[in-house]
């Protein structure tokens, strides 16, 4: 991924500025994750530049800054729009639950549209922008605004010809805003080789935030970056962000560290026989489990059994489904006696079914994070993680998994990932290189025997517990998953019908002793 347009002189300047140790007074934006990467919020009483290309979310960020200011901090705000009218803005923001008309009604928000119609304007001689100042002051004083947005002031440049006057007046404007003591967001359209088309970052140099909407493999991902922040530390990476009906959210994923607690508590896998193989007690609480195997080997059944068991214990479970719809999953699992729909109705189970290609990989992570935040599950199933291949390469999936597992572990969420393995692929590769991140790895495979294809299961690894080293036959019955010992006879490993015949024969006492039975579990 190339970072274009990011090497401007303002960046190098910012690095010098950021070496100051003490932080300046800040204002919380209230936007999830943004305050975190800003190390507390926007600079109080100073203007901040938010720039990016068309449709990258500048206006939403700015509006949410105001709305959250009103809601969470009781700070009135004014939105000066140079592009859209008040009615248009209210309409455009109606899908987001900001409830702008009410905020306007009780005087905590004001939207002021400043329209400049070039065709109506003739310029003759000297002028200044005192009219604009008067309007700003009027609106700010009227409701005692603490937060101000100018969206986007660059529209002035297309309306007025005299660049010298404009630039001088804008400089004066930003000083004036500072003197007024309001925390302001000024938006600007991304320009060629600079952050804004008119180089406004030269004037608003305290804090610059860059938004980006990049399309890779036909999938777009929004990203945010703090370009500079005078007088403060800030996170400098690019972070994915999301705009949905609850507004704007950023995840500071790489801010996580490797310091999560390890629980000694155990949770059932949902399959009694499998628990038995895992030291008789099942998985560790808060551990991550990988179930890998080829198509039709029963990965989903194991995942669903785990989910059902968790719900039976009264634990909330989140199920991410990347292959089937919720209905399809419920129907299919009914057939093996795993009843998920009643838990869904009780609110203990939540199924989130999406196509991997619906978003980029970062977006998936963000979406998952949001779901985890909101639902606060104790257990989680991702089925299957390998489907992410279609939207990300090996490294990206690995990075995503690492972040996801960090999030899950820090919250002590027991999680199961299923992974589809193709017949030829090397084991490591098929599992997204995530095996090192995984605590318990279960492999399910298919064993051809006679004219049958049967399933077998083994535990490849399970950190911190004694576990069975046996390969056991894995049977899907109408009452759930069963694991039975594989029979080893002189004629080889017996599974399915051959095993049954052998057992029956043995019970009938026909077969002489001397044939070896598979080891005890």
């Amino acid at each position, binding site marked *: 991924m190339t970072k274009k347009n990011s090497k401007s002189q303002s960046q190098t300047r910012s690095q010098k500025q950021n070496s100051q140790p003490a932080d300046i007074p800040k204002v919380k934006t209230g936007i999830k994750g943004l305050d975190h990467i800003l190390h507390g919020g926007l600079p109080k009483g100073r203007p901040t530049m938010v720039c990016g290309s068309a449709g990258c979310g500048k206006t939403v960020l700015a509006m949410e800054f105001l709305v959250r200011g009103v809601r969470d901090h009781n700070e009135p705000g004014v939105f000066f729009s140079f592009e859209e009218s008040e009615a248009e803005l209210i309409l455009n923001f109606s899908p987001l639950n900001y409830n702008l008309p009410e905020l306007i009604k009780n005087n905590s928000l004001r939207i*002021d549209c*400043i*329209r*400049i*119609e070039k065709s*109506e*304007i*003739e*310029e*003759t*001689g*000297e*002028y*200044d*922008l*005192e*009219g*604009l*100042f*008067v*309007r700003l*002051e*009027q609106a700010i004083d009227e409701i005692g605004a603490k937060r101000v947005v100018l969206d986007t002031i660059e529209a*002035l440049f297309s*309306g*007025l010809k005299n660049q010298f006057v404009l630039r001088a007046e804008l400089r004066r404007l930003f000083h004036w805003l500072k003197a007024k003591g309001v925390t302001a967001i000024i938006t600007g359209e991304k320009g060629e080789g600079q952050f804004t088309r008119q180089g406004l970052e030269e004037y608003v140099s305290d804090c610059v935030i860059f938004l980006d909407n990049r399309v890779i493999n036909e999938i777009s991902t929004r990203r945010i970056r703090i370009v500079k922040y005078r007088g403060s530390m800030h996170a400098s990476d690019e972070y994915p962000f999301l705009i949905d009906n609850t507004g704007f959210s950023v995840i500071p994923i790489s801010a996580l560290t490797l310091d999560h607690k390890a629980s000694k508590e155990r949770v059932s896998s949902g399959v009694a026989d499998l628990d038995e193989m895992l030291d008789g007690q099942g998985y560790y609480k808060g551990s991550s489990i990988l179930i890998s195997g080829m198509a039709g080997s029963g990965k989903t059944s194991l995942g669903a059994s785990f989910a059902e068991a968790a719900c039976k214990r009264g634990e909330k479970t989140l199920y991410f489904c990347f292959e089937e719809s919720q209905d399809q999953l419920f129907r299919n699992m009914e057939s093996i006696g795993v009843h998920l729909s009643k838990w869904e109705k009780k609110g203990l189970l939540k199924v989130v079914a999406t196509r991997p290609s619906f978003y980029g990989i970062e977006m998936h992570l963000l979406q998952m994070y949001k779901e985890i935040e909101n639902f606060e599950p104790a257990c989680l199933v991702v089925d299957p993680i390998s489907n992410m291949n279609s939207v990300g390469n090996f490294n990206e999936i690995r990075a995503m998994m690492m972040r996801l597992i960090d999030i899950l572990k820090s919250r002590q969420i027991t999680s199961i990932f299923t992974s589809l393995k193709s017949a030829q692929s090397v084991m490591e590769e098929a599992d997204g290189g995530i095996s090192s991140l995984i605590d318990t790895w279960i492999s399910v495979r298919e064993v051809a025997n006679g004219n049958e294809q049967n399933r077998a299961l083994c535990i490849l690894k399970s950190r911190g517990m004694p576990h069975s080293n046996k390969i056991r036959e894995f049977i899907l019955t109408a009452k759930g998953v069963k694991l039975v010992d594989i029979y080893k006879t002189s004629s080889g490993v017996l599974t399915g019908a051959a095993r049954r015949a052998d057992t029956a024969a043995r019970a009938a006492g026909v077969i002489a002793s001397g044939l070896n039975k598979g080891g005890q579990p």
Partner: protein
Amino acid sequence: MKKTKVLKKAKTSRKAKTPRKAKTPKKLWELRLYVAGQTEKSVLALINLKKICETHLQGVYSIEVIDLLRQPQLAKGDQIVATPTLVKKLPVPVKRIIGDLSDTERVLVGLNLKSLR
């Protein structure tokens, strides 16, 4: 600095109203001049405007001077950003001429009294 000269301002606005009263019947040109305080630019703009009107629109115009420092709420209605701004309310189409009106040619073009060559 601008606010200190409010007194003088009041005088101009009274002056501006006088011709309007006298020529009530055939007021075809309704002009509004927005200024922000008694600055050099606003004084110059009013002088220039009067000169142009007397030359080209004698007897058929009215000028209303609005000082935004005294009536800031009026800036919104006519979408005033720059000062001084001359708004030609009538005859339609509405036109805004910003600046001190020192370029007579351009003012005349703006007022649709002269087409741009």
